[in-house]
């Protein structure tokens, strides 16, 4: 305790409230899945999310019948909502991997109570993201053409194209996220298998736990594999949004062709991801009474991450504006002028307000630990990050090099229905996850308890 840094940490809110034992931690988390009756609130919430998901199916079904003409995309703005939403969703996913992998490597043990549902959030967000480029293909049923496979046409994907890189980056990311989430679940599935009283539940959880019995030999290999997977997921998550930014940066469109994009996209991804983590964690801990596990410390730390990444994003905006002037390139200069004074200027100012202005309130410690305020600010950040992608995609495309090819982009009701539909799909998946799987990693919570410490002899 002589270490001043350690003393400072001890003074903060604890990661887990005192008084818990291995047994009570296990019971508290597993009872949500196994014994507690499903609340009416869950049914209402899931019902609404499910209805919105049906809206998504309707919009997608109509898209399959009529084609992308039902959307607002047209030349010059050929990307529109599909790519805006793709980048937004995949960015949200990044916080889950950051929490589970990067914070594990940095030995931030407070992550143990939020990594499980953050990883679930990643999976569902990537699923939502993956839909958009496929729907945007025009002929979505030929999406498998994106992968290199021997075919009778004797052609191959063009591997020099960033769009093909994106296919590999996103599908690798989805696979690794799923594996990481699943091996994290195995010991907890064994706990559910041993705790559940229903035969069907015992069989299902038992199959998924694959006979896990907590052998020391197994744990040793498990810990090694988990650590290595974290080490692999860390560069992966940074690469994914880098490759997404290449979709833009490799092109020559003004506002896209810039080297600041990769770091500023990654920072923006983590920024919006933590906002989504907080928007999920705050209601979850309230409705399930998990304030002892997801404490003010978690809120405070997440808010600090948002503040830091938000400042990196602000730096990115600053450099973009500076380069518009400093490069001396008339098209870049015009883009800056167009953002500030063009037809979409209102959204650019709204973006600056949402992403740079309002989040500065997080400097105030009281707001960082106030669930209500954090929820509100996180919502504003999510909106701001969506606007950022809208500005990048639409404002750059709608007025490029030749005035004769200028145009405007207006989303249609089908654009909105698809976008809101994916939010419904995301929430419906989250509701199901909360109901059938432990939302907090039970075995990692056990390691945080004081009684888990083995005293040296």
């Amino acid at each position: 305790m002589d270490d001043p840094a350690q003393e400072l940490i001890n003074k903060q809110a604890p990661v887990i409230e005192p008084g818990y034992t291995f047994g009570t931690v296990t019971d508290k988390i597993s009872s949500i899945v196994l014994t507690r009756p499903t609340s009416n609130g869950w049914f209402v919430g899931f019902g609404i999310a499910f209805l919105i998901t049906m809206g998504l199916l309707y919009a997608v079904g109509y898209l399959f019948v009529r084609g992308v003409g039902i959307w607002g995309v047209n030349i010059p703005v050929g990307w529109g909502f599909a790519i805006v939403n793709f980048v937004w969703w995949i960015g949200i996913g990044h916080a889950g991997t950051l929490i589970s992998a990067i914070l594990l490597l940095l030995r931030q043990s407070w992550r143990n109570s939020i990594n499980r549902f953050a990883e679930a959030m990643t999976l569902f967000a990537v699923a939502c993201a993956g839909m958009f480029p496929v729907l945007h293909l025009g002929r979505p049923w030929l999406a498998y053409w994106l992968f290199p496979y021997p075919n009778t046409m004797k052609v191959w994907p063009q591997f020099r194209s960033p769009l093909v890189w994106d296919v590999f980056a996103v599908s690798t990311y989805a696979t690794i996220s799923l594996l990481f989430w699943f091996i994290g679940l195995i010991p907890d599935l064994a706990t559910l298998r041993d705790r559940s009283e229903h035969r069907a539940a015992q069989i299902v959880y038992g199959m998924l736990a694959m006979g896990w019995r907590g052998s020391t030999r197994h744990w040793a290999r498990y810990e090694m594999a988990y650590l290595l997977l974290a080490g692999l997921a860390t560069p992966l998550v940074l690469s994914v949004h880098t490759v997404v930014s290449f979709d833009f940066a490799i092109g020559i469109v003004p506002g896209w062709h810039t080297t600041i994009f990769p770091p500023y996209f990654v920072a923006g991804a983590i920024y919006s991801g933590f906002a989504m983590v907080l928007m999920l964690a705050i209601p979850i801990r309230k409705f399930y009474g998990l304030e002892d596990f997801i404490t003010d410390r978690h809120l405070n730390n997440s808010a600090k991450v948002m503040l830091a990444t938000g400042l990196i994003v602000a730096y990115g905006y600053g450099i973009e504006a500076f380069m518009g002037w400093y490069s001396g390139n008339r098209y870049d200069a015009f883009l800056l002028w167009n953002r500030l004074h063009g037809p979409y200027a209102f959204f650019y100012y709204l973006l600056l307000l949402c992403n740079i202005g309002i989040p500065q309130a997080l400097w105030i410690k009281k707001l960082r630990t106030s669930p209500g305020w954090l929820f509100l600010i996180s919502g504003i950040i999510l909106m701001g990050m969506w606007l950022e992608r809208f500005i990048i995609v639409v404002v750059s495309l709608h007025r490029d090099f030749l005035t004769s090819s200028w145009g405007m982009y207006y989303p249609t009701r089908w654009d909105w229905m698809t976008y809101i539909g994916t939010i419904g799909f995301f929430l419906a998946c989250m509701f199901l996850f909360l109901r059938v799987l432990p939302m907090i990693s039970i075995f990692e919570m056990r390691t945080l308890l004081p009684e888990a410490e083995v005293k040296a002899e």
Partner: protein
Amino acid sequence: MKRTQIYGMMAEFDTPDSIVHAARLTHEAGYRKIDAYSPFPIEALAEAIDFHPTDVPLVVLVGGILGGLSGFFLQYWIHVINYPINVGGRPLNSWPAFIVVTFEMTILFAGIFAVLGMLALNGLPMPYHPVFNVPRFAFASKDRFFLIIFSSDPKYEPAETRRFLEGLNPRSIAEVPS
């Protein structure tokens, strides 16, 4: 009852400290075919039974190398050998453009090898295992710690081993039928 029908002798403990202590004493007493079960990873326990695996990192390394090579040569074969396209006289083997996919394939293969390799080396999935025959073993995934001496250990002798385990002060002792 024949001896081969007994899988081992199992003792139950309350705390991580007591299991680590017991495992250490058991190993010191000369028992080698032993294992311990805990509801969360305990590094000192693996040391106590002298288990230091180095196989998982090797599997991951092999997976990573395989993934990287197949990622790069997939692109090389497609763009240089099978379907060369001359774009303004630029080199066919434009390797800087191949780096992204090579990297992603490295991570993908290494990650899959890490998970499947860990499971395979641990002998999972395993639908049946004798330790589950002990009713109290259900607490191994909650808040209890178990030490087992397998009957295949040369020093294993039912009465003698039970006396030894009793000397470790466990909460309970059970013979594990196989």
